[in-house]
């Protein structure tokens, strides 16, 4: 049985978070009525001309700097010519031979904790197309050009990925990066972040690449993984049953969970790229590059290292916390509010907070429990005002808008009982009520200590300090 190796390269399209379009002053806001944000330039009216949005260039450079890419001092916009109703001018303005950003890499972390470098061939600026709507019309398609002209950064990886899992890890890495850099909102449902995957197989050990198929328009991490895995399986089955893979463009059908052919190489467009004569070469000086470099935020890799060094977190915890900039910022604000307690903060952010956010479908940025509130609560855990168990109730109350930790503790009377006399009184009652167990314990059945702790905690409604209860119980039972 032949052993196969998979080779994958991704082309990620990230919509840049500019206010206006890449070549016009129309708004890029999502969800407007059809064609209300398609201006004369976006519609390709006769006589209109494109003018490049400086912020789109800035964003591309930010990405390039964050991935160790070279920033081209001289790059060129080209026209990619093809006819399609969602492409108003009959060509897409893109970059072809000379992209603005090229030759860099990112490091991704795999499931087994190993890291891996993935090369970036290039990242270039281009305009997005409009949308074709097929529903609600009989025999016709409706065209909405609101999206036409939205700036895209197309990020092209080297064919360095060897499995669908790696491809997903890479895509997540880029997703995290563009959000850190605040150049893309990363909203995959709205299509702000999507990718095409080039997939091929070759016998293990063979140097040459096999013939690849390109799977278009994958707009979720799950689809990327499923589509690639399906495609690998399809190609292996095909080759093992005597067939050959043909170079073609395929579409992933998320309902059927399979890819199907869109067009083969023979049917492929002849795009007739040539430099766009309406635009001049884009020139970026090294001073401009340095000015942009100075505005870069701390990036996920650096942040992760710092979290490990400064907060003593494990690589895993640091990785999870820094996966998104919002979450990392939230965590740091909690630590600050709590006056330390980084481990505890990490556990709460990754545990209860993250669970509650997931449950309610909210983003960390609009959590009802602010970092100050969570930090304040952690303070009450560390100064023994409440136990970790009670803290879960306090957290829920805070989540439900019942005030900050102190207010909740006060209102619900959740303050931990640490008065030795009060605890001793409860212990005495429990001992008196359970003579049988006391006898067994004293006869050597140490395991019953848990039972007594439980009874006392129950009697205190959970508020007794568990450590004190333990200590006092031992003393009383042995006495």
């Amino acid at each position, binding site marked *: 049985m032949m052993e196969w190796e998979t080779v994958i390269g991704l082309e990620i399209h990230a919509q840049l978070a500019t206010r206006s379009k890449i070549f016009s002053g129309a708004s890029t806001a999502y969800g407007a009525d*059809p*064609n209300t944000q398609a201006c004369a330039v976006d519609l390709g009216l006769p006589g209109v001309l494109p*003018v490049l949005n400086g912020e789109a260039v800035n964003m591309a450079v930010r990405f390039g700097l964050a991935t160790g890419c070279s920033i081209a001092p001289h790059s060129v916009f080209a026209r990619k010519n093809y006819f399609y109703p969602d492409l108003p001018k009959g060509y897409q303005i893109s970059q072809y031979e000379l992209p603005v950003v090229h030759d860099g890499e990112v490091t991704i972390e795999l499931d087994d904790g190993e890291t891996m470098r993935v090369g970036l061939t290039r990242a270039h600026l281009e305009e997005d197309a409009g949308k074709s709507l097929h529903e609600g019309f009989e025999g016709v398609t409706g065209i909405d050009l609101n999206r036409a002209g939205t700036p895209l950064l197309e990020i092209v990886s080297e064919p360095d990925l060897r499995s669908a899992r790696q491809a997903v890890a890479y895509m997540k890495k880029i997703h995290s990066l563009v959000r850190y850099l605040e150049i893309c909102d990363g909203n995959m449902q709205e299509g702000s972040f999507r990718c095409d995957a080039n997939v091929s197989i070759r016998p293990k050990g063979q140097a040459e690449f096999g013939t690849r198929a390109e799977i278009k328009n994958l707009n979720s991490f799950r689809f990327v993984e499923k589509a690639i895995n399906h495609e690998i399986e399809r190609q292996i089955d095909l080759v093992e049953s005597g067939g050959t893979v043909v170079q073609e463009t395929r579409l992933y059908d998320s309902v059927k969970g399979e890819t199907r052919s869109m067009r083969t190489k023979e049917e492929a467009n002849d795009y007739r790229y040539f430099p766009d004569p309406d*635009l001049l070469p884009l020139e970026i000086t090294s001073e401009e590059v340095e000015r942009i470099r100075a505005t870069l935020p701390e990036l996920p890799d650096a942040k992760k290292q710092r979290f490990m060094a400064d907060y003593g977190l494990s690589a895993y915890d640091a990785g999870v916390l820094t996966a998104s900039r919002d979450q990392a910022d939230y965590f740091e604000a909690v630590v600050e509010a709590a006056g330390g307690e980084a481990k505890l903060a990490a556990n709460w952010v990754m545990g209860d907070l993250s669970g509650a956010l997931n449950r309610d479908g909210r983003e960390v940025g609009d959590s009802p429990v602010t970092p100050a509130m969570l930090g304040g609560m952690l303070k009450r855990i560390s100064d023994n005002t409440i136990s970790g168990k009670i803290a879960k109730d306090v957290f829920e109350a805070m989540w439900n808008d019942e005030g900050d930790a102190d207010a909740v503790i006060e209102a619900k009377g959740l303050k931990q009982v640490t008065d030795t006399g009060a605890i001793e009184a409860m212990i005495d009652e429990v001992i008196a009520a359970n003579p049988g167990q006391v006898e067994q314990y004293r006869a050597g059945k140490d395991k019953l200590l848990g039972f007594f702790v439980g009874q006392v905690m129950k009697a205190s409604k959970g508020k007794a300090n568990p450590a004190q209860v333990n200590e006092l119980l031992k003393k009383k039972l042995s006495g």
Partner: protein
Amino acid sequence: MSLDKDDVRQIAHLARLAVDDQRLPEHASNLSAILEFVEAMDAVDTAAVEPLAHPLEMRQRLRPDQVSEENQRELFQSVAPAVEGGLYLVPRVIE
């Protein structure tokens, strides 16, 4: 370069032009004549010459990222051949 009818058919398809079959020979001969004429350039060696895309070698100007355009859908669609519900209509596109 001499083009034949099939070449013209292929070019016309790329350019999305309906060309009458009967006129293919005429087009082929016209296009061939033009191509032959422009091939006069082959006589000069340009191996070491940088192509010139723009007469003025200037750099691209950048626009501030501001929304300057208002909704003019009604005006723009007043010249459209077929619209419905704000959408431009085309024959059904199958993907």
